[in-house]
């Protein structure tokens, strides 16, 4: 039985299982806990955004799901298949698009895909058909015969990077920052491709720190920080639960001291000074936020270093939950 056949057999046996099921996953490197007891379930057919800053534990989590790294404890299943017990079956149903452009620039697009397809046990006409299909999905048919992908544009390379993960027709696809550094045309092409794949039943986990992309693509969202999933649910539900307006002010020390004294007189306002010294106020109603900042600007700090008023969004949810902006944004 080929790997592809094994994979299909695996799918048939796990139609009712969750696409992804993590339970109490812990992983430490040199006494630093990268994943700290994460439990997370992704249903089949979902399009979920996994949000988190660099160092939050996303890559380690993906590595554990992909079978590259073994967790210290906990259990991980893909379509009901235990990763630790049957790693090759999991590899047959799981596709991973790495953040790196993991393709060979010396080879052509077709040569790259034929090689990666062969790694999944695909042969002969089936391999040729899968390569042609993957190239069509990412809009690179006209580039297939070019001698070397090293001369492709950044967007074309990104699309080929995705195509290489589609050859074995995975049931679950994890994409790690798939749109870093590309042009809007390629980004839109990738979005359309992913929507099409999802509409065909593929479960997609979209890992990013571009919140707008999650808002544009995903139905559900999970936010990870310090190795834990700190919030998850439908996009609307998360916004309803945590969607607050935010005012972010960077003030001089004396001004900040006076502003804090003023805020103490308004018990209905939630505020904090973040790690990077920003005074952050959150309110449920945007008008309240505007009134507060007006008062501070008028009475205390007419010329603050920075002043931001943010309406409810995933970004304000993230900031509200973690106290920090996504660190690379």
């Amino acid at each position: 039985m080929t790997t592809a056949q094994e994979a299909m057999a695996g799918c048939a046996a796990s139609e009712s299982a969750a696409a992804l099921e993590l339970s109490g996953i812990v992983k430490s490197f040199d006494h630093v806990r990268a994943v700290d007891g994460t439990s997370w379930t992704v249903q089949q057919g979902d399009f979920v955004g996994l949000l988190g800053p660099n160092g939050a534990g996303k890559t380690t989590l993906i590595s554990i799901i992909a079978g590259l790294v073994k967790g210290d404890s906990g259990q991980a299943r893909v379509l009901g298949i235990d990763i630790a017990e049957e790693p090759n079956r999991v590899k047959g149903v799981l596709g991973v698009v790495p953040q790196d452009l993991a393709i060979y620039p010396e080879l052509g697009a077709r040569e790259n895909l034929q090689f990666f397809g062969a790694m999944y046990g695909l042969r002969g006409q089936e391999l040729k058909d899968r390569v042609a299909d993957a190239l069509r999905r990412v809009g690179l048919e006209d580039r297939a015969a070019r001698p070397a992908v090293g001369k492709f544009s950044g967007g074309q390379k990104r699309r080929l990077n995705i195509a290489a993960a589609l050859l074995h027709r995975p049931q679950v696809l994890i994409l790690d920052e798939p749109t870093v550094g590309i042009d809007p045309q390629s980004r839109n092409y990738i979005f359309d491709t992913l929507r099409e794949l999802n509409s065909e039943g593929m479960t997609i986990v979209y890992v990013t720190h571009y919140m707008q992309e999650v808002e544009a693509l995903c139905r559900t969202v999970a936010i990870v920080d310090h190795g834990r999933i700190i919030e998850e649910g439908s996009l609307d539900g998360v916004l309803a639960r945590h969607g607050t307006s935010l005012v972010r002010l960077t003030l001089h020390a004396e001004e900040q001291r006076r502003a804090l004294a003023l805020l103490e007189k308004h018990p209905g306002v939630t505020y904090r000074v973040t790690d990077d010294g920003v005074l952050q106020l959150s309110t449920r109603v945007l008008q309240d936020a505007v009134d507060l900042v007006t008062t501070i600007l008028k009475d205390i700090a007419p010329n603050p270093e920075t002043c931001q008023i943010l309406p409810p969004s995933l970004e304000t949810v993230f900031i509200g939950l973690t106290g920090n902006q996504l660190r690379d944004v």
Partner: protein
Amino acid sequence: MKTLHVFWKDLLILSKDRGTYINLFVLPLMFSVVLTIALGGVFGGGKSDSPVAIPVAASGVQAEAVAKAITSIPGITWRTANPDDARAAVDQGKSIGAVLVAEDGKGIDFYEDPSQLTNAQLLYGQISAALEANRAASQAARLGQVAKASGNPQTEAQGASILTEPSLRLTTSQSGTRDTSAQPTAAEQYIPGFTVAFLFFIASTIAQYLFMERERGTLRRLLISPVSRSSILVGKLLPTVLIGFVQVVVIFAVGRLAFGMALGNPAALILVTCAAVAAANGFGLMITSLSKTQAQATGLATLLVFTLATVAGCYVPLSFMPGFMQSIALATPQGWAMQAYQSIIMKGADSLEVLPSVAVLIAFSLVFFGIGLVRFRFEER
């Protein structure tokens, strides 16, 4: 099957890399051809019959006087011995020559190792000059004594006998047990020499391609697919194994066609090449596994490859080196490969005769692969 796909993919990439051709084929060919032409008969190998003798042992009634002359030459180690022991030392290759003074003190024979030419030729002149200088000094001293005793009726006769005293007669003879063909021609030195040196230079290419695969993230992508780590590693090493064989075929073919170098027993040649290529690839994997970056691995490989090749006698015949250097050569895989290749092309050694060298090379391979496999990390943390 997946191993073969990895092999074919890497071969395609390697074939598009001009640096590979330059480093692994053009450079060794250039060095071996140019040096073979430039240094034609410098090692004295082949049919040269130049008389040589380097004294290291002396015996006979005038041993003291001869030893005194020899010790005036810097850089010579000598000892006294009886004639049989002195000859045996040369016969066994422990000394490159012996000075044998006749019992009557009238003749000195230089008993030589004919496989040692150039060094001997340089010293031969020094020894002759030293003996002549010693004789002249002795004559002057004795004439002085005669002058002091002037008036004595016997003085004139003594002075005349000193001045007409014949000088010591220097002859040479050669050890019958030593083979003149033991000294290589330039082609027999440089064709296998640069083949062996650049066979191990593949270590740099192995490191380059393994690190490149890891840094690009393609190794990670391969690990995510259902292919075993051993398939990946074997598939990645197969192209460099193939390159090793092609290197030997190409450079030896040039040696044969351009310089008429004998190729010897084909089976023995293949056997040694298999073992040497295995050792070179194991060496490459070990260097890669012990390095943290590609630059570090390439630097380490270059340093070790050229140093070990020099010590192993790839560039200069081992017989030109001091005894301790010749011993060090046997601690290197290049030294054993060199010794095996030269015994095939110079002495016509067959498969059985090169088996000890092959066994040592395989032992080196096992050690290198063992360290490489234990230490190699597929992923950076």
